[in-house]
């Protein structure tokens, strides 16, 4: 593919990526949000984080099958405990990485 081919493809991809990120923000930030919508939206961050994490920790992503013996799950539980105790983002990321690294070396 040449330069104009790539440019056209990425412009279109950028457009369909940008519009869903932009329209709700533009529209909802200038409207008075009803209480039920604020309540519902308050659950969205937890729901999205949990939905993103579940397959990473509980499934084999190449075969797309259930696997509850992944080392990632064990690390996640230790990391979760650390996060609950310390409430430190940097510390949690660091502990997770170290555990993942060590587990990769020894197993």
């Amino acid at each position, binding site marked *: 593919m040449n330069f104009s081919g790539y440019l056209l493809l*990425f412009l279109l991809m950028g457009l369909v990526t940008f519009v869903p*990120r932009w329209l709700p*923000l533009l529209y909802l930030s200038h409207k008075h949000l009803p209480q039920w919508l604020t309540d*519902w*939206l308050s*659950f969205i961050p937890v*729901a999205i984080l949990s*939905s993103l*994490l579940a397959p990473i920790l509980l499934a084999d992503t190449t075969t797309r099958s259930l696997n509850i013996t992944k080392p990632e799950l064990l690390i996640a539980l230790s990391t979760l405990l650390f996060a609950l105790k310390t409430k430190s983002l940097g510390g949690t990321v660091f502990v997770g990485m170290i555990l993942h690294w060590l587990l990769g070396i020894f197993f």
Partner: protein
Amino acid sequence: MAAAWPICLGYFPVGLALGVLANQAGLPWWAVALMSILVFAGSAQFICVVLLASGATIWSIVTTTLVVNLRHALMSSALAIYLQKTNRWFLTFFAYGITDESFALNMARFRSGDWDRWRALVVNQLANAVWIFSTVLGTLVGQFIPKGAFGIDYALPGMFICLLVFQLQSRFFILTGILAAFISILWYLLIPGDSYIIGASISAATLSFLIKRYVRRKQ
């Protein structure tokens, strides 16, 4: 500036990996730079590289991108709560940088109170800069870096776990987290594609919302 480092650290290996794949698929470094600047969406860019390598048409790549990135509409809606009555130009610029990671980090900070829209924008733009840099670097030198070095692959899951903990402010949020994990894994196993993120998030949030209302009415 310091707030963005978990994202930057997490984007780095992912960006390198994308660069290596793109290079193998025959994309020149400037095309990868162009893509990271114009699109800035990790999973969609991976899919694009795979599809380009398999000779897919532009239209199928663009449609797939739209479907994969629709989940950001949900995040954009949730962010609107903290960006009420903000200048439209600011919102337009800010919207460009909404990713799974910047959303999660900014929401946690907004919620704790010691945050403002300019800091949120700095997080978005730093993440973007690291993303562009690491994807281009990946096309140039990626082959020489050992896989899984220093456990860096766990930076993003680690960050998600901690941000999840920050959000658990009451028993209803714990319930939402458990419901979402359960629905997400089922959806992921049964339905191909990436719809499990939007599907599980909307279902879990709606269920928790209804349960909370039911409990409040009974009291």
